[in-house]
């Protein structure tokens, strides 16, 4: 019998992971830019939220937007740099790795390498059919699903969403159709930053915070994007939930210290068996 509490917590955590990776999925899907600094962007935003909410004691509606804005700024700034080298995969990789290292060390310089813990704003437990889950996590789940629905609406219905889908299919063709490809890419990276910031605020009380956790988030994000399929938002949510559940169950039943190995195994298996992911479309030929 599976422990239902662990299962539900895994699903909630997984949906949050999915939200975090959706920004990555958008940037990579639309701009074809593998931003390996994405994990550190999330962490920078987490630290910013920690700073504003718990050290400066700002009220939530002032502190949280600051964290989101920081993530948006970093995301767009990274895009400005990466835009210059998009013709070469390897240069994109190393440039973004360099940015990641710089971000990590800036955080290290400001906050030091110690582990920090943030208290939850919403406390209490919800009991339902013998399963006890923190109220905070339920709130997180609801917010995450709401953001996902909003995001899918933006991508499906608005003009920006249409141009994003067009650019992700073919940059040249959308350029010829009169879409400002560069502007779409920057808008996408801005949205990705906002998603990273939002997920950072939700992630804040769940894990301990330290500067080098960005690498873990990078791996999580990449594993989910690969698992769910590139450029598919539903796939990202599904991938996130699968990964979060697997990770929680593995940590509970086997070895807690090796939870991180789950991402790696997922990445390898998916890439070898079904490289386009669960819900990914087959890539158009160049």
């Amino acid at each position, binding site marked *: 019998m599976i422990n239902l509490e662990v299962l539900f917590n895994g699903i909630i955590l997984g949906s949050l992971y999915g939200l975090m990776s959706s920004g990555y999925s958008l940037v990579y899907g639309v701009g074809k830019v593998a931003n390996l600094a994405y994990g550190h962007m999330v962490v920078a935003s987490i630290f910013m939220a920690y700073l504003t909410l718990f050290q400066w004691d700002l009220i939530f509606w002032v502190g949280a937007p600051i964290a989101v804005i920081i993530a948006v700024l970093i995301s767009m700034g990274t895009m400005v740099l990466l835009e*210059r080298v998009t013709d070469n995969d390897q240069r994109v990789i*190393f440039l973004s790795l*360099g940015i990641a290292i*710089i971000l990590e060390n800036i955080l290290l310089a400001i906050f030091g390498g110690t582990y920090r813990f943030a208290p939850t704003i919403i406390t209490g437990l919800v009991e339902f059919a013998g399963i006890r889950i923190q109220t905070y996590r339920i709130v997180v789940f609801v917010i995450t699903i709401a953001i996902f629905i909003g995001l899918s609406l933006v991508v499906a219905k608005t003009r920006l969403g249409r141009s994003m889908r067009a650019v992700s299919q073919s940059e040249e063709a959308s350029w010829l159709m009169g879409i400002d490809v560069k502007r779409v890419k920057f808008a996408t990276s801005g949205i990705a930053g906002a998603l990273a910031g939002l997920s950072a605020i939700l992630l804040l009380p769940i894990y301990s915070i330290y500067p080098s956790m960005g690498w873990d988030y*990078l791996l999580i994000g990449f594993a989910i994007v690969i698992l769910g399929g590139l450029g598919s938002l539903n796939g990202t949510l599904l991938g996130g939930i699968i990964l979060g559940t697997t990770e929680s169950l593995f940590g509970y039943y086997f070895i807690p*210290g090796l939870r991180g190995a789950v991402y*790696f195994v997922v990445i390898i298996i998916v890439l070898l068996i079904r490289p386009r992911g669960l819900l990914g479309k087959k890539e158009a030929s160049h």
Partner: protein
Amino acid sequence: MLEQIEAIKRLPSKTVNSLKRVLTIDFMKKNKIMIVILFILCIYPIGPQMAGIDYLIHIGVVANIFAIIAIAWDINGGYTGQGNLAPAFFAGITGYTSAILTTQAGWPIAPAMLLGIFLSFLSAVAIGFPSMRISGPYLTIVTFSVAEVAKKLTIYYSDVTKGEEGIGGIPRIFEGAFLNFYWTLFVLLAVYLVAMYIMRSKWGLAFKAIAADETRAQTLGVNLLKYKIISFSLCGIIAGLAGGIYAHYQAHIDPSFFGIIMAISIISMAVVGGEKTLLGPILGAYLLQFSMEGLRFVVGQAPWVRLSLHGVLLVVVMLFLPGGILSIFRKEHKEDAETISTRVKGWLHGIFFIDNEPENSGVDPELSEEHAAEQVDQ
């Protein structure tokens, strides 16, 4: 002198020809930078030795070892174009195998290191197979996660690996920094020559073909699987050798060797010095190692300044000088260095006027078309 010439004459003709090629003035003129750098390396420790500053020689030893790993990465990541983040992982495998066998099983150093190198060869082959199906950032992430998992496993199975503290008391091959410097320099030069030979052989051509365009290389008859695995295993063997030497020089090894920071520092050495060259990694390793240690005096013990140096250098080199420092001296990359100022201008322009294409602004459309045609020709 005459005896030596006689001895050279008795060597097989192929070797004589290559020796003759090395000894001509023409060759020396063509490879001025290489000869200068190698000469400086050979005489470097004499000064600190006379002054009695072992610490300076120690930095040189570490730079030598990292230069070997950087060359190993360059064969795979630079020449073959695989985004490999695992060179430090290969080095760590040999380091750990050799350390565990010598300290806990009482093996002598040589067989322990050989077994370690064999294991890193096997793991390199194992990583080489997925590289057939995945490429670019995916391959980078896979190699990165392999290294991260290795780090986690090392910390987790702490009864064998001594956890985060690492294994200490590993027996040394040579005592004293001076001797160690020449021993590591000897290995570095041997690796350099072997790598140079490989890159000029059929293998090297195949590697470069794969890096330029995989599909095209395959169409022209390059066996992708074979050469990718050869490239990965060369990286594994050479990096493994360096890892073993490192463990037996420092007498200590810890899990941070597997970590991403180590991998990035090694890659930034190769990239800063000059990717797709063999001298670049050596130059980069020395430059970074000495500037890291120099920064220690300037900023004190704050680790973040020294660590962010890699990041800053990677960003600057990738943006403005993709050929690395060596490309400033090299004729075939000279235009790279000359366009730095144009690049900086374009970059600044891009930050402040995102919508305008800097190369098209104020330029006649016909002229810019000509420019594009020129670029296609190149």
